[in-house]
């Protein structure tokens, strides 16, 4: 059920079977998308733009970090603690795969509806 590497093969069964459970979740997908686009992103930006509580966001970040999809760096700017999140190469691949699978799913649904 979990694929994190390689390009999804459109001939390899239903696209749902290729979805990555770690990534296929609204908040985590949002984290990966923002980290991909921003190069690196701060905890506060993610919390605000994904409308999550600090605790909830921390849990999602922990899942992604354990899966090796993001790296978390903690530090200080002046007296203020800041947590920066960076996408790893595996995270980049996982995000690309997820988007490809979602597009496949949409295409399949549209094909089915059209028949």
């Amino acid at each position, binding site marked *: 059920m979990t694929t994190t590497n390689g390009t999804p093969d459109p001939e390899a069964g239903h696209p749902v079977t290729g979805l990555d459970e770690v990534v296929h*979740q609204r908040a985590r997908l*949002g984290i990966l*998308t923002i980290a991909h686009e921003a190069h690196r992103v701060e905890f*506060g*930006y993610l919390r605000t733009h994904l409308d999550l509580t600090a605790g909830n966001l921390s849990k999602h970040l922990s899942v992604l970090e354990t899966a090796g999809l993001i790296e978390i760096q903690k530090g200080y700017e002046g007296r203020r603690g800041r947590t920066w999140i960076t996408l790893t190469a595996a995270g980049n691949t996982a995000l690309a795969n997820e988007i490809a699978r979602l597009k496949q799913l949409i295409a399949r649904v549209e094909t089915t509806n059209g028949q």
Partner: protein
Amino acid sequence: MTTESVPAGGDPRRLLSDIRSLAHQVRLDQRMTWVALLVLGAVTLVGIPFDWLGMTVHCRPDTSCEFARRGVLLYWPPALLLAYTAIAVCYMRAARARGLGARTLPYAIAGAATTVVFTTAWIAAALYFPDHPLPDQPLPYRWLILDRLVSPWSMIGIALVVLARIERNLGLLLFTLAYLALVLLVLPMNEGWGLAGWELQARFAVPQVISGALLLLGAAGFFRAARRQQR
């Protein structure tokens, strides 16, 4: 681990739409287009006195004149490198304050590369022409455009195209194409422009004032647009 993990009907489309709008929001939050245009507009206007004072003009009795724009060669290379450094630093600081990273390296590289191209072309011309006959006047159109292309004012536009690509900023791309059309095809950046009786320095200043003013107007426009988006 599996909260919300199974897509309900229609969810893939919504997820993709969410991804796109998040990515778009990040790009908007990273943009500091007006700063880039403000710095480049200011650099253009500040460069005018350098061009004016550094220009050497030798007019012959037949009213034809030879000139050398040494001020351009002395002012623009360091000014452009400083400008691109300042823009990159502003982008990084602003993005960091918003909690984001910034992708300024390609723009800084493009800025440095265009500065090298312009400087090399102008030094080559300065070394070549004193010992070789000047080309027949008027110059063929393609040479005229090529001469304008390797000028600092056009190189600013080339680097702005790279910035528009990095920011995926259609507004900046359209503005830059209009700016490039102006400095390449309309304004006589390499011939000067003005009323009869104006000295050569003043004629060369006019196109620079117009291009600098356009960049500053662009900065004001993008600043207003950014403020509107933040509200």
